[in-house]
């Protein structure tokens, strides 16, 4: 299940995304939580402290490039596998959540397929 959480700034989407990630992980195991916000703060909503949050290394943009899909829409193409990205850049969060910080890199790139 691939869920994206959107909304206006300040709507509480990060609090909902973080809490939802942990609740889903408690109910069914392994959740990948992806912070795609250029101003990332999902880590805190997941229960990491400020020091842990600050230590997270974002996934470099150099792992991907923009292309166009068959329909001519913008698409993001990965140059390494999602598994490699999660293994290298994933940070363990409570309840079996793994957090990835991707800034402006698109969510599906590190998707669990």
């Amino acid at each position: 299940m691939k869920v994206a959480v959107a909304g206006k700034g300040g709507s509480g989407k990060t609090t909902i995304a973080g809490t939802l990630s942990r609740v889903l992980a408690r109910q069914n195991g392994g959740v990948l939580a992806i912070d795609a916000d250029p101003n990332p703060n999902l880590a805190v909503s997941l229960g990491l402290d400020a020091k842990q949050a600050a230590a997270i290394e974002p996934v470099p943009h150099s792992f991907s490039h923009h292309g166009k899909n068959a329909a001519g829409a913008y698409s993001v193409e990965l140059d390494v596998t999602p598994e490699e990205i999660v293994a290298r850049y994933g940070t363990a969060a409570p309840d079996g959540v793994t957090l990835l910080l991707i800034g402006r890199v698109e969510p599906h790139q590190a998707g669990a397929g």
Partner: protein
Amino acid sequence: MTAVVTDMEAGIEHLKRGTLEHAEILLIVVEPYFKSLEAAGRIAELARGLGVPTLYAVANKVQSERDEAAIRAYCAEHDLPVLAVVPFDPEVSEAEREGIAILDSAPEAAAVGAIEEVARALRAADRYCMEARVAD
């Protein structure tokens, strides 16, 4: 991994850069005021145009029946099912102020209960989608 949850960039500009390309379910968090509702409507319209299969609104910071009614009316008009209503919760404000997770500071908070409802509803929707795919 059983689920991927992506906290998107705020607003709508990023949607044109393919950020929703592989999303199966989009949750649009909406607060009970006009500009938030309008933003949700625009996000929904763009997401539909981009072919996101399933869209839901999640009402947040709801303080009254009038708040909830305003969100439900707007969402009904825009064909956007409301998956859950998360109440305004001072425990959330407190957790935000302290920079801690609401699940750790107040696991029994009303807002947490509502988000647990979101998770259950998502599981049910996901199971239904998978059955539909199998049926195809």
